[in-house]
């Protein structure tokens, strides 16, 4: 089996995880910029983080033969401080030409505040000005439904953004339809407690089809499972999905979306 891990926070993981992922058939990993679990005190911290994402982490993954790509932004968890966010957003253009940067992400909302919306609009503007793909984080738990609606409205209001170049991540049963109806791609995150279990993710695929959906582990420093995608692929096979149909969801779909960025290339 082959698969793409389209959302993994590998800076928070050990090299054992890289080994396990490659052994399970991972062909590439993509790492959105994320909250470190604590607030950074200045834009300088983000500069170092962007260097880590674009220089150090690709080298670490390469030791396991795994292509590593990334997305850049200030995560919505740190967007309440608009001045900090503006300073960080101003840093991003100098990194956009780096060979493993796929676009702007994971932007979005966390608690659905006015400042978070303002910073989201600035990120969307940045992506539009630089013709970048967009990866969107939708809020957690009770904030997801409202946040998804607000995010969809922000994106729709910028006419420069083509819906098919935006992936809205962490969808669940109550948000997936609205995302797909707007022409976006949707990501399902496989978490042990919050977000989707493997069984529910496959239910969503059964109901909505697998045309513009992908699955990810979003493994990070919290409760998460780096092998969640291949384990879900195994459950798809148990539920009668053909090997070809599984491959479409876990490999071909991420390749289709990510290949809209010409820098995304898999080794021959």
């Amino acid at each position, binding site marked *: 089996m082959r698969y793409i891990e389209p959302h993994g926070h590998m800076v928070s993981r050990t090299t054992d995880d890289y080994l396990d992922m490659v052994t399970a058939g991972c062909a590439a990993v993509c790492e959105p910029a994320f*909250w470190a679990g604590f607030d950074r005190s200045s834009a300088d911290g983000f500069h170092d983080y962007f260097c880590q994402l674009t220089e150090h982490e690709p080298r670490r993954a390469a030791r396991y033969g795994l292509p590593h790509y990334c997305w850049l932004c200030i995560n919505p968890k740190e967007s309440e401080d608009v001045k900090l966010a503006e300073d960080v957003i101003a840093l991003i253009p100098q990194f956009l030409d780096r060979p493993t940067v796929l676009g702007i992400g994971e932007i979005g909302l966390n*608690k*659905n505040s006015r*400042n978070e919306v303002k910073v989201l609009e600035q990120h969307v503007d940045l992506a539009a000005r630089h013709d970048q793909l967009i990866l969107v984080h939708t809020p957690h*738990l*009770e*904030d997801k*439904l409202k946040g998804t609606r607000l995010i969809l409205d922000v994106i729709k209001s910028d006419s420069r953004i083509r819906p098919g170049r935006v992936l809205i991540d962490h969808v*669940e*049963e109550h948000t997936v339809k609205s995302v797909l109806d707007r022409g976006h791609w949707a990501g399902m995150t496989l978490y042990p407690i919050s977000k989707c279990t493997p069984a529910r993710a496959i239910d969503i695929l059964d109901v909505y089809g697998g045309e513009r959906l992908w699955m990810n582990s979003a493994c990070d420093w919290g409760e998460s499972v780096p092998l969640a995608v291949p384990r879900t692929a195994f459950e798809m096979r148990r539920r009668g999905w053909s090997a070809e149909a599984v491959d479409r969801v876990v490999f071909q779909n991420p390749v289709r979306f990510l290949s809209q960025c010409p820098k995304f290339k898999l080794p021959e």
Partner: protein
Amino acid sequence: MTRQQVLDLYFMDARCKLIELAAFLDRVDRATGEADFRLAAFRAALGGLASDETGRAAGVLRSFSDPTDQPIEKATVKGAVGAWPG
């Protein structure tokens, strides 16, 4: 999948989770002190399980969700607790 296949694959898992829910409610009953808004939200969501209509998972998720449509003034915390406090 046939219904028989779904039962073969998921019945024991769903049975386990159902008993966990029942045990959780028993545990809450045995505990002391006042419950907060999450327990009421949980009981309200449980009602959706008895529905004969499909879409129960989405219904449960919606019942825990913030139903408002305007951004809040300021984010004072980062985390979510699983149910809207109102």
